[in-house]
Every structure is written in C-alpha cells, then in structure tokens.
C-alpha cells in the first residue's frame, strides 16, 4: 500500500494534474499571471483564447519545457515544480506526451523510426518490441501504409498523425495538444481531429489548446477560456461556448464564431 502510495492517492481524488497559481514571464512580459486549474483522469479539457493569452505557455509549463517561476504544479499527486523540478522533468516526460503545432517530426528518421526511437532510447524497449508497438500505433492513426516514408514526403495531416503516434508510444497518462491543427491546410484538419476524437473516446486524459470551436463543443468535457495570462472562465462547453458569463469570453467568441 505504502509503496504505491502516490498514484493511488492521486486516483482517489481523480485529479491528475493540478496547477496552483502558476506564473511565467519572459523578460518583462508576464505571460501567465497566476493560473490555477485541475484536470481529472479521463477528462478532455479544451483551452481557448486569443493568441498571446498564454494558452501554449500553459501547456509548455505543464511538461516543464518552460519551467514556471512561481506556483505549483502537481502531477499524479507529486510536485514537479520548485525544488522538485530537477527530478520532476523525468517524472513528467515519462507520463505526459506532447503534440506540437509544427509537428516537429525528426526529418532524418522515417515515420516508424520517429515512433520507435524514444521507446528504445528512453524506455529501453528492445527494437522488435518498439517496432511492434510503433506499427500498431501508426496503423491506429491511419498511417499503416506510410511507415517507411520520411516526413518530407508526408502531408501536414499525415505528419501530425505520426507525431501523435510518436507521443502515444511512450504510454503517456496525459496528452497535451498545442494547436495541432493550426498549421494544417483546411482539408487536412479533420483527419487529425478524428484521431483525437478516438483518443478521447478511449478515455485518454487530454489538454487541448485549440481554435477548433466545433471540436471543443463536441469532445471537451470542460472548456477553459484564457485571456491575458489568466483563466477568465471555465465550465462545460455548452456553458462557456453557448452561454458565456464573462464579457471577454463573449467578445472573443463573437470574433471567432462570426465566420
């Protein structure tokens, strides 16, 4: 009991990630001004807001690509910020997968190698096992036919699906999506969102920074609206998107939903 204490305790409350008054600045620019959010296991949270509102920085703080200056982040009950940040980095990166706006596939590796390399280097899986896992995941995201292709031979949508498979190969407990469809041609957006829908349906805990309001409405259990480094409003999508309380949310939605 005691040896497995941490994850068990975390499960009891159902909270996987909790942010408490997280602040981040770049030089003089205060990007996050004290953000507090909790995410439960299996929850899909969509983060929306104008550009520059700190959405992406929030994600990057969660996996410590940008360590926050103030505030606490707990992952599965364990603090990963402050004094714990040194060990926190490994702890987080083994549990949290991230998908980027620009895909960031490794251009000198084939699709399959992109999905296997970290399994081998980080998880010490033997090549055959990593390969089997990689092939399974690539088939799952509909890339079974393109496993040996290099990224520059793939469309943006295909690259992004490989990037999702690459993150999933590490068996993450939580997936972070940073505007993953923003760099895609419109006709390629759906294939990526479909993969994410499927993931959500399977019960993956997901934090999704997005401009796809339809996706948020359909898939999110909760929507977080951010502006100017703060969480302005949070709640079920029907409320936040359908009937926002805050003036700033209304304004933003007015601008986004007009077209």
């Amino acid at each position, binding site marked *: 009991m005691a040896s497995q204490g941490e994850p068990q305790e975390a499960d009891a409350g159902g909270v996987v990630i909790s942010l408490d008054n997280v602040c981040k600045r770049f030089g003089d620019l205060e990007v996050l001004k004290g953000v507090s959010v909790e995410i439960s296991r299996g929850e899909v949270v969509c983060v929306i807001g104008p550009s520059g509102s700190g959405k992406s920085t929030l994600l990057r703080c969660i996996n410590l690509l940008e360590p926050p200056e103030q505030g606490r982040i707990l992952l599965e009950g364990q603090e990963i910020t402050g004094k714990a940040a040194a060990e926190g980095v490994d702890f987080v990166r083994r549990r949290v997968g991230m998908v980027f706006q620009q*895909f*960031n596939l*490794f251009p*000198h590796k084939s699709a399959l190698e992109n999905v296997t390399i*970290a399994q081998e280097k980080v998880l010490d899986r033997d090549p055959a096992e990593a390969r089997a896992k990689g092939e399974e995941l690539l088939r799952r995201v509909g890339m079974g036919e393109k496993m040996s292709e290099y990224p520059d031979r*793939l469309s*943006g949508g295909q690259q992004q699906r490989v990037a999702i498979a690459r993150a999933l190969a590490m068996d993450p407990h939580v997936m972070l999506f940073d505007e993953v469809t923003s760099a895609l041609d419109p006709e390629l957006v759906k294939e990526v969102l479909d993969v994410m829908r499927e993931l959500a349906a399977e019960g993956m805990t997901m934090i999704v920074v997005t401009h796809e309001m339809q996706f948020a409405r359909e898939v999110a259990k909760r929507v977080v609206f951010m502006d100017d480094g703060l969480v302005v409003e949070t709640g079920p999508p029907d409320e936040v998107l359908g009937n926002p309380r805050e003036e700033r949310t209304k304004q933003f939605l007015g601008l986004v939903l007009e077209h």
Partner: protein
Amino acid sequence: MDFILEYYFDFGLMRDQFGPVLEGFWFTVKLSVLAGILSLAWGLVLAVLRQLPGKPLAPVRGLVIAYIDVFRGVPLLLVLLLVSGFLGSAASPVGGELLPRSIGIPEWFGQPSPFWYGVIALTLTYGAYMAEVYRAGIEAVPRGQMEAARSLGMSHGESMRNIIVPQAIRKVIPPLLNDFIALMKDTSLVGFLGLTEVVQAGFNFQSSDFNGSALVLGALLFLAVTIPMARLVDRMISRDQGKTQRGAASDRDSDIQPSGPPATGMAGA
C-alpha cells in the same frame, strides 16, 4: 616569354623531380587526412560542449568560447612553432625533461616528429574553425526538434546525439569540406619544421636549380585533389538547395508553411 615557360613548365625537370615531389605530396596527404579526421572530431566535441545547457555549466561554455577565439585569431604557423618548440624543449634537458622523450619528440608509426607537431597544431587550430561550422549547423536545427526530443523523455545529451547532431552534420558537410581544403593547403607550413612535404620539396629544387617547375608540379598535385573536392561541395550544395526548394512541409522550414500543391499532392494519401 620562353624564360617564363621554362621557369614554370620545364617538363624535363618535372619528370626528373617527380619522385621526390610525389613523396613530399604523400606526406601532405597523410598529414591532411589524419589532422582532418582529428579536427572533425575535436571540433564536434567543442561545439557540443558549447551547447551545454544551464547556469552551472556556464564556465565550460566560456572556456570553449575563449579557446575558439584564441585559435581562430592566431596564425597557424605561430601555433605550430609554439607547439613544436614547447614539446621538443620539454622533453630535453633544457626543459628539465618534463615529458618523456617519446612524447615530447614523437616518432610514432615511423613518422618524424615535425609530422606529429603538424598534426597537433592543425588539429588545435582547425578544431576551432570546425567547431564554428558545427555550431552554425546545430543552431540551424529548429528549436522544435530539441523540444520534441525532450518532450519524449530524452535527456539533453540523448537529444543532441540522436536528433540534433545528425541533422546538423548533414547541413554542414559542404562547409566542413571547404575547411578541409584549407587545412590541406596549410599543411605546407610544416615545412618550417624541416619536414619535406610537397611545397618544401619543390622549394628545395627551386633553390638548387633556379627553376620553379617542381613547385608548379606540387601545385598541380594539390589541384588534382582540391578541384574535385570543390566540385563535390558545389554539387552537394545545389542538391541541398533543390531539396529545400521542393520543400514539403518539413520541420526544416517550419516557420514558413509552403502551401504549394507539391507538398500535399506528393503525399496524397
């Protein structure tokens, strides 16, 4: 006019002196290849050390930067003279025999000590040049590559080794080859230490015969190697540019999303 032709292109002399000149050139080739390989490795070590992250490692970065500044800013000949003078002295009674003779005055693999002084000086200097080339390559790899690798749980070192450096090296092979050509020409400075490499061999004949044909022969031997290398560099660069212009939506040009039809057309599910 005849004098000019005779002075530079006395084919009879060239034929007679071909043996010794070629022997000198063979020294040049051995020296270039060995110093070239060592500079490539030493330069990469310097470049990677320079990229180490975090405040505690700032002194390491500072030392590397100072090293590169010094060795890029000082003539190779000066380095060569300081290296040979110090090592030679340190192994002699003059220097209190600080070094064993076999190290201070090395004659490894049957090569004379000036050869090894040359290898050391060339590596010290060209390591610094090549470190700068590698650095340009490393910095040209988009930041997202390191972030993606780190987000998958790789350490900084693993990310550099598996993701960043392999991409960087691909980008910098042409400039590294250029540096190698420069290195090869600079091996002639070892003549100052009494090693009869190709330029020294030619110069000896010029001094005794008052005729430069042996030097011209040496030049031709150089060109036989350097011109094909220069063409190879050109071809690699133009091939690389072709690739970038074709540019599907790859990571390389992640900021500029090429929206042209080839990218999607080519992949076309």
